[in-house]
Structures are given as structure tokens and as C-alpha cells.
């Protein structure tokens, strides 16, 4: 069973966002594996441990992605590919085209990815790739079972669970609850340093930057207005309850 995992590095979710020259500043930011991709990595390793095979992560992003990739390798991923060529950094259209070109050169039975990344949260790339590869996609998986050449997926839809079946290969995106990602072990971390990380340019994968040029463009980045701390009510608790409900009706007008 050869499994590919699409992996993105993101800001730690406890980071605050600071703008510098109209762009999100990366100064002093703690980076992590996108939490949803981490579920995908864990699931891939679990499947490999059960059925054998190889797990490869595929990423598109700057050099700093290496730390997230090394963490995945330390968790048990076998090898990694990073397209770190800024000529092919664009929007979701660009990313999907580039990653598809990389995937086409691999042999795979299953592709796993987070259902969304916690930074841009566009949630487009796995679907776009599925369409280009002409394989099915099942999103927001909370449970995966493989039986021979078939896969059964429990999918979370607004709290309901759908149970779906498909023939391999497929793309599955992970939802929270799929598993509990492991921490890398010390020997794992040591081994990860020597595992292969293949860095590719647009040229290496045979993509011309013009063909994958972004279709959309950010024209402005801004922070939400800072929220003023509101009123802390005082007095007897029962009076506070009454006052709150009245304020919600007469002042806030939301009830």
C-alpha cells in the first residue's frame, strides 16, 4: 500500500497575526504541521503499520517547510518531496496543478490530506487534484477501513456520519476525530534526519510557471477592528442574570 500525504506547514493556532507592510508577518512565529494534515500523516502511518508499504509526503512551499516535513518523517513517514520553487507559488489553482504533476510521477493506492489548512482555509486543493487525476474524493473522514482494494470511510457531515465505500485509489481528507497523532520518538527524530527529502523546482516536474499562473489575487490584507472589552456585570448573581437578559433585548437587540 503506497500512500501519499499532502502536507502543509502552518502557523501554530495559538499565534496572533501581525501585519507588516500590509502582509502577514512571519517574524518569531512558531510553525507546525497543519493540524488537519497531521491527522492525515498519522492515519497513513497507521495504515502502513498494518498493511505494509510506503508513506510519502508531498508539499509545495518555502524552505521553512522542512521542519514540518522532518516532524512527519520522525513520526514514521518514509520519504518526502518538497517543491520549493517560488516561481510556482500562487493560488489554489496553481498549487493543485503543481501537486498533481508531482503525484503523476508517483505510484499510489491512496492519497490523504487535511480537509482544510488552518491558515487560508480555502479547502480547494484536494478536490481539484482528485478532479485532475480522475479519482474519487471523500472529505472530512473520521474513520477509514481498508479491505483489499476497497476503502470504507466514515464521513462527518454537520455532526451526522455518512458511511461510504469506494475502490482504490481515492483521495481522503481528514477531519478532527480521525485519530490521535503520535509524538515523534527520539529514535524517530534521529532517523528522520537521514530520510530522503527531495527538493524539486518547476523545471524538475516539467511545469512552466506561466501555465499554472494564479487565477486570483490578494489585493488587501487587513486585521479585524480590535474588540473593546465589554461590561462585566456586578451585584447579586440573580440580578446580573436579569440585567443581562434585559441588555440583550434592549441594548444589543439580539433576543
Amino acid at each position, binding site marked *: 500500500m503506497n500512500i501519499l500525504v499532502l502536507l502543509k506547514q502552518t*502557523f501554530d*493556532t*495559538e*499565534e*496572533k*497575526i501581525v501585519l507588516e507592510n500590509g502582509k502577514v508577518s512571519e517574524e518569531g512565529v512558531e510553525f507546525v504541521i497543519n493540524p488537519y494534515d497531521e491527522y492525515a500523516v498519522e492515519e497513513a502511518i497507521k495504515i502502513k503499520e498494518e498493511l505494509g508499504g510506503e508513506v510519502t509526503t508531498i508539499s509545495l512551499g518555502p524552505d521553512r517547510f522542512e521542519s514540518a516535513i522532518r516532524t512527519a518523517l520522525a513520526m514514521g513517514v518514509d520519504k518526502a518531496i518538497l517543491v520549493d520553487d517560488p516561481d510556482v507559488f500562487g493560488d*489554489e*489553482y496553481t498549487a*493543485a496543478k503543481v501537486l498533481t504533476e508531482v503525484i503523476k510521477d508517483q505510484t499510489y493506492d491512496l492519497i490523504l490530506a487535511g480537509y482544510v489548512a*488552518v*491558515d487560508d*482555509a*480555502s*479547502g480547494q486543493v484536494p*478536490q*481539484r487534484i482528485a*478532479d485532475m487525476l*480522475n479519482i*474519487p*474524493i*471523500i472529505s472530512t473522514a*473520521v474513520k477509514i477501513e481498508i479491505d483489499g482494494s476497497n476503502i470504507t470511510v466514515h464521513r*462527518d457531515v*454537520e*455532526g*451526522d456520519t*455518512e*458511511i*461510504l*465505500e*469506494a*475502490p482504490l485509489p481515492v483521495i481522503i481528507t481528514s*477531519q*478532527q476525530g480521525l485519530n490521535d497523532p503520535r509524538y515523534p520518538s527520539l529514535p524517530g527524530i534521529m532517523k528522520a534526519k537521514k530520510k530522503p527529502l527531495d527538493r524539486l523546482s518547476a523545471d524538475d516536474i516539467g511545469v512552466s510557471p506561466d501555465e499554472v499562473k*494564479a*487565477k*486570483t*489575487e*490578494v*489585493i*488587501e*490584507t*487587513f*486585521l*479585524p477592528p480590535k*474588540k473593546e*472589552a*465589554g*461590561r*462585566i*456585570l456586578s451585584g447579586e*448573581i*440573580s440580578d*446580573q*442574570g436579569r440585567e*443581562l*437578559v434585559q441588555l440583550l433585548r434592549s441594548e*444589543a437587540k*439580539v*433576543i
Partner: protein
Amino acid sequence: MSKKVLVFAEGREGRVRNVSLEALTVAKKVAGGGEIVATVFGTQTDSFVESLAHHGADKVYVVNSPSLDQYIADIYKEAFMQVVEQVKPDVILLGHTPNGRDVAPKIAQALDIGMVSDNIAVDVLEDKIVFTRPIYAGKAFVKKIFNDGTILATIRPNNIPMGEPDESRTAEKVDISYTPSGNALRVQIKDVIRKASKGVDLSEAKIVVSGGRGSKSKEGFEKLYELADILNAAVGASRSACDEGYADYSLQVGQTGKVVTPDLYIAFGISGAIQHLAGMSNAKVIVAVNKDAEAPIFQVSDYGIVGDMYEVLPLLMEEFKKLLSESA
């Protein structure tokens, strides 16, 4: 220049979803007098035509096929592409719902076009359509435009005010038949386990009642449903409440989890970790109830009560009941 706009309309519990009507409001704004076409899928959607007309649809393409009664990505994409080929729209809009957000990128790819997901505002500036969307779960926002090609965007529920319905409007109904190809039948649905029947959908709710670590137990957390019932609200949870097993992960509000923007968000026993605040701080009005006066949640709340949630909860239930029965 006028544009032809296609809106994917979805139903939930026999009614058109609010977000689909909000998308029609956007359609009117960007069409510049151009034709607005809505499309609905499945066998239970005939009654939607009237409501879609009232909200601005000129034509409604009804794809009445039992294969569309359950969502499967490949099937929905194939049926949608059939509609796109007939309508030839300049702009395509969908709600950012579980189905909308899943099928939209497949349509974008099939048309080889760009897409902007999860928009909270859409404006027309000169001849450009400008989309505003959150990044980092609302810790920041970006404005995006399309460089070329057909425009495709999803609209986040409960952010763009729905226009007033015009009950005199009617729409032309166009029936379309659809049969899935073999390719679209690769994924089979085996079963659906309904768990979410309890209460209102979190992402579209006007009021969210949410519990954190302070809920102390699963039984304690369940009490929030009693308040939610009174307010017709959805129930949410913080990551700690989910990690502790008090609540299901599907209820989690935050940067991992759901981002909600209700009119009113009431946080019980939630301290306010940054990743939780990202998921709810854009709610219009925030109420926090927490024992710890120093909890960061009070920094973003409009009204705060420092106290034990189990002391405050019954009081609020009683007061809300009184108020709502007076105004009923």
C-alpha cells in the same frame, strides 16, 4: 457590464437554506441587471422554486433525479456541469456548506478556473468583483479579485444580509434530467447515522450557546441544550471540552473546528484560548460566563458575568423563558 449569475441552492429540512438566499442577494449585486439563474438538485425541491424567485432568481433549473437526494461529490459535480453547460454563467455562487464547499473546487477544476472560498462580503468596485474572506479563522482578512476567467465563489452562511423577498416575483422553471455516468458511481453510500438532529445547525445558527472546560462533565455539558432549546440556538464547544470528552468534536468552535458568526454567542466556562477566539470573536454580540475574572474571553465579550456557570445557567434559562413568553 451585466453578468449572468448561477446560484447553487440547497435545502435543509424541506426549506431553502438561508445561505442560498444570501447567495441570491450577492447575485443581484454582481449581476448588474444580468440574468440570475438558480439550480436545485433532488426530488424534493419543486417547492423551492417559489422562494428562490422571491429572492431574485429569474430562472430555476430543477435537476430532479433520485441520484441527487444524497450528496456524492462526483455525482453532484457531473450534474452541476450539465447545468453550467446549458446556462453558461459568468459568475457561479454556492453556499460554503459541507456540500457546497466540497463540490465547488471540483467544478472550478473542471472549468479550469479560479475560486475564492468562504466569503463574508462581496462588493463591486468599478468593473471588478471584490471578495472578502477570513484567513487564520478570522484573525485577519483578505480582499481578493479574479485575474481572468469565469468567477466562482462560496459564501459563508450568516454574514451577508439576505435581501427582502419580493413575493410578486416568479421564475421560469426548467426541468433537467440527469443520469450518473459509471465514473460518478465509484463512491457508494452505505449508511447515514443521524446524530445532529438535536438542535440547530452550528454554522447557520443566529444564536450559539457554547461550553468549555468549566462544563466539568458530559452531563454538565448536556445542560446547555436546555438553554439552546429555549433560544432556538445551536450548541458549540471549546477544544478543551471536546478533548475532555464532554462534547463531540463536531461541535468544536475554533481555528481547528468550526468558525461561527452568529448574532449572539454565549460562552459558558470557556477561558478563551487564542484558537477558540479565532472561531467566534466575529460574532455580533458575545456574552461570557466564567468563574475566573481574568479569563481572556472577557477581553472580547460585550457582556460578562463572573460566576459559576451552573449557578448562572438556570437563572438565565428562567429569565429568557420569561422574556420570550412575554413577547410571544
